[in-house]
C-alpha cells in the first residue's frame, strides 16, 4: 500500500470520500518534515465537528496541539496499531475525552487516526457491555429454575452454563458439565450427530438432533437437543439450547412403531413389515435378488378349530405354529403373519426349486406335528405355496401373489401339501385373476345382463285357445365378455362365488329382474308373467343382509313379494339346513316364494324337506332327459309324487320335445320350462314373445276359414318373436 502522497489522485479522493462518509472522526497524520512533530494532513467532517473547526484551518497543524494521549507509550507506532484514551482540544477551548486508534500505514510515516468520543465509544461500550451482562444474568436467572434442561455454549462445543434441570437430568453437578464435560455423557454413537448439530448452530443455523445422554446412575435418557445460534458481541458465535427429555415419548413411539409392524398375537412381523422386507429384496441396489423365495402357508380347516374349540383355542394354535415356524427357519429368514391363519416365510439364499422344496417340506413337517389345544389333541395340516423371485416380480405383491397362487393350487390338490409356482400355474391363475377383475367391472358397469326363460303351464301351452299369462319366468345372468365373447354362467357364477362377488351379482340380477317385471306389468297388463324366479347362491343363505336386499328391491320397483320366487339348489340348502330354514322362513314371511332347484340330485333329507318353507320343486333336467331317451321316468314320477304329497308344485326343467311334455303332464306335472317353448331371451324379446303368443291365441279364437289346429306349435328357440 502506498501513502496518499503517492496514491493516484482518484484513489486518494475515493479514500478521502470514504473517510468523509464515516460517522467517526478520522484524521490522517504524517511525520513532520525533518523529524518535527507529526502534523494533521487531512481530516473528515466528523473530526472537524469534534474540533469545532474548519477542516482547512486544522490541516497542517501539529497533532500534539490538538490531541493529548494517555501516557502509555507512543501513539504513533510504525508497525502496530495503538489504542489510547485521549483528549481532543477544540477551537472553542472545549476538551473532549475520546478513545483514539492510530493505524500505521506500513512502510510510510503516515497514520490514520479514528477518534470516538468516550461517551459514544468507551462509555457506550461499557454501558453496552454492562447491559449485555445484565441481560445474561437475567437470562441465566430465567433458565436456572426453568424445568426445561437448558444449555448455553461458550465457544465451540464448550458449555458456559447449564441449568438445574439439565444437571438433574444427568445426575451431575452443573460445574462438572461446563466446558466439554457434558460431551462425556453423550452416547458415543450420537456424538457425531451432536457435534454436527452444534457446528450448524455455530454457523448460524437453528438445528436439532435426538441423542442419548448417559446419566450418572447408568441410565440412558433420550433428549431432543434444539440449538439456536447466539452471538455475544466481541466474543463471537455461540448457541443456546434446550434438551427435552423424550425418553418416554420415544419409547412409546417405538412401541407404537413396533406394534404397527408386528402381530400382537404371535409377535411375528406383520403384513406391513413383510412388504417392506420383500420390497428390499426385490428393489435392492442390485435389482431383484434371485435367491429370494417366499413360502405362503395357510392352515387347513382352521375355521373348524375356531368353531369347534373356540377362538382361544384357535389363537393358541396360531401361536404354536408361529413358534414352530420361527424355530425351523434359518438365520436371516423372516417368518411373518399375514393375518388369520396365513403365514409367510421370506427366505434368502434359496438357489433353486429343489432347495425351496426342502424348505417347504421342513416347514410343513413342523406345522403338522400334533398339538394339544385346550386339552384336545389336534392334527394340524397346512397348504403351502412357494414362489422364487424372478424378473417378473417387480413388487412384493407380485411375488406374494405367485406364492398365493401356488398355495391355492396346493389346496386344490387336496390340502396338506405344498406346490411351487411354475409358469403354467401362473398363467392359468393370472388368466383367472384377469377374468375376475373383468367380472368385477362387468357387474359394476352393468355388462352382466339378465335373460328370461318362460315357465309355462304345459296344458295351456299346448292349447293356445287356453293361453293365460305366464306363471313365471326364470331370470338368468348372462355375460358377454368384450374379448372372450359369451362366458358360460357356470364359469362366472363359480368365479363370483369363490371371490366374494356373488352378493353383488345376485343383487344386480334381482334388481334387473324386478325392474323388468315392473315394466312387463305396465306394458303387458294381465299378460305380464305372474312371477319372476331369481337364483340364490348357497353362500347367501347365511347372509343376514339378504332379506333387506330383497325387500328393498321389491319396494324400489313396486313389485309385490308374491311376484318373486327365489331358487336355491338342493345342495345349498342341505349344506346348512338350519340356517337355510331361518332364511327361507324370513323370506316366506314377507311373501316371497321359494323353489328348490335341481331337485333330486342332492340327497335331501326328506325330514328336512318337510320342515322347509318351500313352494316349488324343480325337477332336475337329468330326470326330464330320461323321459325322452326311453327311460321309465321313475325318478321324475317320484319327484312329482313327492311334490304332490307335500303340497308343492313341481316344475320340470329342460323340456325339449313334446314327448317329454306329454309324459310329464301324464305324471301330473303342470309347469315346465325348456327349449320346447322358448330359450332364455331379453326382456324386450319376451314382451314381443308374449304379445305374439297372445295374438296367435286371439287369431285362433276368431273364426278361420281354414279352421284351427289343436296341435301345439313350438316357437323357434330363442329367436325373438316379431311383435304383433
Amino acid at each position: 500500500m502506498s501513502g496518499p502522497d503517492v496514491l493516484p489522485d482518484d484513489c486518494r479522493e475515493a479514500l478521502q470520500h470514504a473517510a468523509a462518509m464515516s460517522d467517526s472522526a478520522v484524521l490522517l497524520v504524517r511525520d513532520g518534515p525533518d523529524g518535527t512533530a507529526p502534523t494533521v494532513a487531512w481530516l473528515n467532517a466528523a473530526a472537524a465537528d469534534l474540533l469545532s473547526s474548519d477542516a482547512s484551518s486544522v490541516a497542517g497543524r501539529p497533532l500534539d496541539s490538538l490531541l493529548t494521549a494517555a501516557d502509555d507509550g507512543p501513539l504513533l507506532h510504525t508497525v502496530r496499531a495503538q489504542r489510547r484514551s485521549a483528549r481532543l482540544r477544540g477551537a472553542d477551548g472545549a476538551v473532549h475525552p475520546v478513545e483514539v486508534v492510530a493505524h500505521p500505514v506500513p512502510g510510510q510515516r503516515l497514520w490514520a487516526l479514528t477518534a470516538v468520543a468516550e461517551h459514544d465509544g468507551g462509555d457506550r461500550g461499557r454501558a453496552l457491555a454492562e447491559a449485555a451482562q445484565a441481560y445474561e444474568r437475567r437470562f441465566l436467572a430465567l433458565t436456572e429454575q426453568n424445568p426445561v434442561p437448558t444449555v448455553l455454549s461458550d465457544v465451540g462445543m464448550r458449555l458456559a452454563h447449564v441449568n438445574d434441570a439439565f444437571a438433574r437430568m444427568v445426575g451431575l453437578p452443573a460445574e462438572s458439565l461446563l466446558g466439554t464435560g457434558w460431551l462425556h455423557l453423550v452416547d458415543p454413537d450420537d456424538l457425531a450427530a451432536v457435534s454436527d448439530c452444534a457446528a450448524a448452530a455455530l454457523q448460524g443455523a437453528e438445528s436439532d438432533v435426538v441423542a442419548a445422554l448417559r446419566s450418572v446412575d447408568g441410565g440412558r435418557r433420550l433428549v431432543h437437543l434444539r440449538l439456536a445460534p447466539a452471538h455475544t458481541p466481541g466474543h463471537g458465535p455461540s448457541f443456546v439450547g434446550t434438551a427435552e427429555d423424550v425418553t418416554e415419548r420415544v419409547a412409546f413411539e417405538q412401541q407404537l412403531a413396533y406394534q404397527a409392524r408386528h402381530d400382537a398375537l404371535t409377535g411375528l412381523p406383520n403384513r406391513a413389515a413383510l412388504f417392506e422386507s420383500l420390497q428390499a429384496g426385490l428393489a435392492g441396489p442390485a435389482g431383484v435378488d434371485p435367491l429370494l423365495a417366499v413360502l405362503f402357508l395357510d392352515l387347513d380347516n382352521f375355521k373348524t378349530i375356531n368353531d369347534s374349540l373356540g377362538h382361544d383355542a384357535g389363537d393358541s394354535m396360531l401361536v404354536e405354529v408361529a413358534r414352530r415356524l420361527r424355530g425351523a427357519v434359518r438365520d436371516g429368514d423372516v417368518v411373518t403373519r399375514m393375518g388369520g391363519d396365513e403365514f409367510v416365510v421370506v427366505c434368502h439364499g434359496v438357489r433353486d426349486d429343489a432347495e425351496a422344496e426342502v424348505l417347504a417340506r421342513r416347514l410343513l413337517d413342523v406345522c403338522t406335528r400334533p398339538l394339544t389345544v385346550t386339552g384336545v389333541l389336534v392334527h394340524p395340516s397346512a397348504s403351502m405355496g412357494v414362489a422364487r423371485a424372478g424378473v417378473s416380480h417387480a413388487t412384493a405383491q407380485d411375488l406374494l401373489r405367485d406364492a398365493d397362487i401356488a398355495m391355492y393350487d396346493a389346496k386344490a390338490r387336496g390340502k396338506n401339501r405344498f406346490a411351487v409356482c411354475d409358469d403354467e400355474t401362473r398363467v392359468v391363475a393370472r388368466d383367472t385373476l384377469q377374468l375376475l377383475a373383468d367380472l368385477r367391472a362387468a357387474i359394476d358397469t352393468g355388462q352382466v345382463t339378465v335373460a328370461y326363460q318362460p315357465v309355462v303351464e304345459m296344458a295351456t301351452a299346448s292349447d293356445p285357445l287356453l293361453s293365460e299369462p305366464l306363471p313365471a319366468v326364470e331370470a338368468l345372468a348372462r355375460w358377454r365378455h368384450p374379448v372372450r365373447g359369451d362366458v358360460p354362467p357356470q364359469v362366472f357364477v363359480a368365479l363370483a362365488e369363490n371371490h366374494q362377488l356373488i352378493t353383488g351379482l345376485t343383487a344386480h340380477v334381482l334388481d334387473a329382474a324386478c325392474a323388468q317385471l315392473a315394466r312387463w306389468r305396465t306394458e303387458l297388463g294381465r299378460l305380464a308373467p305372474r312371477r319372476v324366479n331369481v337364483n340364490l347362491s348357497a353362500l347367501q343363505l347365511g347372509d343376514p343382509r339378504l332379506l333387506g336386499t330383497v325387500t328393498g328391491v321389491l319396494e324400489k320397483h313396486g313389485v309385490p313379494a308374491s311376484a318373486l320366487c327365489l331358487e336355491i339348489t338342493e345342495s345349498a340348502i342341505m349344506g346348512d339346513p338350519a340356517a337355510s330354514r331361518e332364511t327361507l322362513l324370513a323370506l316366506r314371511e314377507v311373501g316371497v316364494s321359494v323353489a328348490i332347484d335341481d331337485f333330486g340330485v342332492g340327497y335331501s333329507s326328506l325330514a328336512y324337506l318337510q320342515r322347509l318353507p318351500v313352494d316349488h320343486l324343480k325337477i332336475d333336467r337329468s330326470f326330464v332327459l330320461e323321459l325322452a331317451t326311453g327311460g321309465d321316468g321313475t325318478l321324475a314320477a317320484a319327484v312329482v309324487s313327492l311334490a304332490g304329497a307335500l303340497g308343492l308344485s313341481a316344475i320340470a326343467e329342460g323340456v325339449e320335445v313334446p314327448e317329454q311334455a306329454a309324459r310329464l303332464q301324464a305324471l301330473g306335472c303342470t309347469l315346465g320350462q325348456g327349449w320346447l317353448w322358448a330359450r332364455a331371451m331379453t326382456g324386450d324379446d319376451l314382451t314381443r314373445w308374449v304379445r305374439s303368443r297372445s295374438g296367435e291365441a286371439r287369431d285362433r279364437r276368431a273364426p278361420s276359414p281354414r279352421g284351427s289346429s289343436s296341435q301345439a306349435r313350438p316357437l323357434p328357440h330363442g329367436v325373438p318373436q316379431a311383435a304383433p
Partner: protein
Amino acid sequence: MIVGYGATTLTPAPSEGAPDLPWDDGRGVVLLEDLLARLDQVPAQRPVATQIVRMTRDDDMSAPRLASVVGADAPLAARVMRLANSAYYGLSGRVRTVAFAVTVLGFTTVRSLALTAAAGVGGTDPVPPGFWRRSACTAVAAGELARPLGLHAPDAFCLGLLSGIGQALLFHADPAGYTPLVEGCEDRWSLLEAERARYGASHVAVSSAALRAWSFPSDMAAALQVVDRWPGSRPAENGDAAAVCLLVAGEVADRVVEPGSPPQDVLHMTGGRVQPGEVAALVRRVPDLAADLVRAVTG
C-alpha cells in the same frame, strides 16, 4: 528495579559480571521497547500474522474476512484449523474450513495464535524448554476457572496462552543465555526472580508489555501485571478476577509440569475465591487437554 511502560526502561539489577546482553545500550539500561521491537521485525517474515495482530478488536470483524486473512498464512491457518479441531473445543474433525475454525475459536484466540506466530513461536520455531506444555496447561486451566470467577472462558484461555509470550521474546533476544537460566531454576517463581535479575523484568512483565503494545484488551495486560507483582501485592479483594484466574492457572500448570515443586497456598493466593479441591481436580483434568492443545499448536 524500575519497570515502566511507554518510554519504558528496565534497569537490570546490579550483578557481578553483568551479561553482555545483545540489546544492552551500553549505558546499563535496557529499553523494553527494543525488546518489543523484535516483534516489529517479524512483518517481513510473518506479514499475515502481523496483520492479524494489528487488527484491533472489532465486534464487526466477520469470520469470513478474518479467515481470508488467516488463509494467506498456511502454517497459521493450519494451526487455527488444528486448534479448532482439538478436543478442547469438542468438535474434533468437524471443522473443515478456516472460516468455521475462526468462528469456533473466536477472534481473540485467533489473534493470540497470530501473536505467538509473530513472536517467533510457530510450529517449528525453537522455544524455551517446556514452553508449550506450560502455556497450554495455563490456558486450559484458565479457561476452566473462568466461569466460576465470572470471566469469559475464551478470554481467560487466551490470557493463559499468552501469559508466557514474554518467555519467547526473552529467549529469542538471548538464545544463549535464556535456556541455561530456565534450566538453572527450580520453579517458576525462582525463574521470574532470575529473569528480573538478568533482564530487569520477568517474562510475565514482558508478556504484559507485549499485550499492551499490540492493543490486546487492557485488562489482560493488567492481570499480568498483578501476577508479576505477586506475592508482593495480592489481587484486589473483590476485583482482579482475571489476575486470580491467571495465578491459579499458573499454579495448576506448575503442579502438572513440575510435580515436585512446592505447592502454593491457593486459598491465600485467591483470598478464598478458589478452593484447593478445585485446583486438585484441574490438575487431574488439564494434562490430557493440554497435550492435545500442544499437538494442535505445534503441529
